């Protein structure tokens, strides 16, 4: 028996496909997983005035903001990816994104970027911005974070076979469909092109990043929405990047970092497998789960 459930969240469509014995129960589990994603959207949306992220951005420049365990863990994960990716992933790009016109609203008077200006105090579990104008944007990791929590909810409900995805760019697989090694997913390197890389996903998460997802025309130049926080420009060194990891949030954050870098940095997590589409149009797959990828 297969059940489907879908909800809009985080500016895209999340979908759950579940396999099992009782359809009603599968549907209920799918709904709960998607409700978890909705809850995370309410907490981490940059554009909702009532979100936790809006509160952090509004107040952390003046005072230390107390966080719950989940929220603090997420920001610590951001800090770790930022450090290990040598700054290629940076969740403080919000003011810069607005300044470049990717986010709505007037450009801010200044657009500082720097995770080094985000102080996370594990003892008091608080966050504080050390520089004026700093703001967080978790757009490059939020979907993965929500998918991790949703998948945990499904596992807790006893679901053994499911695929959850957000906007087809981030997915998490639980088990595999009957008779298969994993959930077979095609990865498209170019907009509109047929997939030439496939992955059999099982108890892993996948995230794919590419600059063509959202673009902006500025001074006659088409700019991709992925910024290199170090140069402060929308520039990347690969045509697409995919990351497979046991953690959806790590896969999400690292796919962005790998797109910016164009190669695996030395401190890439050992359990993370990457696939990078270079400028010549060749997929380069590295990491412990290389065997689950198939290039055509």
């Amino acid at each position, binding site marked *: 028996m297969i059940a489907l459930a879908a909800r809009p969240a985080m500016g895209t469509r999340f979908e759950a496909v579940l396999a099992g014995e*009782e*359809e*009603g*129960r599968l*549907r*209920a*589990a799918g*709904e*709960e997983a998607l*409700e978890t994603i909705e*809850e995370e959207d*309410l*907490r981490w949306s940059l554009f909702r*005035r*009532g979100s*936790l992220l809006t*509160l952090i951005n509004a107040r952390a420049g003046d005072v230390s903001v*107390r*966080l*719950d*365990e*989940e929220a603090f863990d997420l920001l610590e994960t951001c800090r770790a990816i930022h450090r290990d990716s040598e700054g290629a992933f940076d969740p403080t790009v919000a003011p810069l994104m607005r300044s470049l016109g990717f986010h709505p609203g007037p450009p801010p008077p200044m657009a500082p970027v720097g995770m080094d200006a985000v102080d996370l105090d594990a003892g008091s*579990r608080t966050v504080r911005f050390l520089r004026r104008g700093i703001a967080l944007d978790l757009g490059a990791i939020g979907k993965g974070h929500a998918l991790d929590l949703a998948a945990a909810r499904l596992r*807790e*409900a*006893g*679901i053994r076979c499911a695929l959850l995805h957000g906007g087809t760019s981030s997915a998490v697989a639980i088990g595999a469909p009957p008779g298969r090694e994993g959930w077979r997913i095609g990865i498209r390197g170019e907009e509109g092109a047929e997939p030439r890389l496939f992955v059999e996903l099982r108890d892993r998460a996948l995230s794919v990043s590419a600059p063509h997802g959202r673009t902006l025309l500025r001074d006659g130049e088409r700019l991709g929405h992925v910024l290199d926080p170090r140069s402060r420009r929308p520039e990347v060194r690969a045509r697409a990047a995919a990351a497979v990891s046991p953690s959806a949030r790590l896969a999400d954050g690292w796919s962005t970092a790998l797109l910016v870098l164009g190669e695996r940095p030395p401190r890439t997590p050992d359990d993370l497998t990457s696939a990078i589409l270079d400028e010549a149009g060749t997929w380069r797959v590295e990491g412990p789960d290389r065997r689950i990828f198939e290039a055509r």
Partner: protein
Amino acid sequence: MTGPSRREFLLDAGGALAAISLFPDLSGASPLAGADPIEVGVIGIGRQGRAILTELQKFDAAKVSALCDVDPSRLESGARRASGVEGFADHRAMLEKAKGLKAVFVATPTHLHRAIVEDSLAAGRAVYCEAPIASTLEDARAIAKGARGSKSIFQAGLQARSNPIYRLAWSFFRSAAGRDLASMRGHHHRKTTWRVTASEPAREAALNWRLDPEVSLGLEGEQGTQQFDVFHWFTGRYPVSVRGAGAVRLHNDGRKVPDTVLLDLAFPEGARLSYEASLANSFEGTHEVFHGSQATIKLAWTAGWMFKEADSPTQGWEVYANRQRFGNEEGITLIADATKLAAQGKLQEGVGLPQPPLYYAIESFLKSLAQGEAVVCGAEEGYRATAVGILAHRAVATGETVEIPESVLKVD
């Protein structure tokens, strides 16, 4: 609440029907800044309990220090949403051991409220109790009497009464728009199973209390109570009878509790409220509508509109109008405090309720605790709305018209 000044309302002077959005004053956004943190506990960490934790995080004036749930998994999930809390499986142990606790939020299944509320009040804790406050008239009365006889604050979680949009609309309704009320309509559509899953069957049965006909008040009680109260509050009246019917239209999983219900509530002097709720369809979500001879008001929890009749008097403050189209009608967005927002160039930012309705209910509770403000919805209002919900459920369950005599609506 301070009533809106007349120039804060923007009415369309043109022909046909005009839609006018009612939005709250956003100037008072500071969540009780400066107050000493009040230690609070949350009892029941299901969906609603987690939502309460999320909103509480926004208030400096409150610190969650204790959580309670019989389900270890839910307790653990709640603890991840709070910082430095102590977890309890039993509310009595929580009330006994968490000495600094000043208030509790009761978000357990409805039929379990009574003992928790009574114990909490007896232990001197203020109580915010989700609505409906109980699943039987006897329990609801006991809670209301207990709250009345206690020195502690009690707030029933009827969220409309603290919702800035509804408060704004209420004052307008009472002043003009509700004149010559013709009819009322309530609507709740959300496509969902209403089921909860767990890895153990026994645990799953307990978590699915809303689908248990022995204890559940069904859609008409569990959801309807919140919405019926909007009509009670606006009109100042309660229904005199209710009839209804329900059926399982989509979720054929063996459930007995209908997933779709229709009700007809008769109010004094001939006005009627038709109420429809369904778990089979999501169209138009949740809203309440008042049809008056001068205008129709539609309230949808995070937004509200007024559709003026073409022959209703023209007002002089249309200058701030922000127009919207609703199908063939051109409406005017009404924003409370529009003058100030326009001067700041922030008129568009005034569109939409900034926080979820639950936030404002919690805020008003904390204001009562920290600043001594009047409780926006006390035990008596909570009891009466719950009683209507219980009798509406009886009407759906029996298929008969159920009378609602005044005596039933009295706590004593």
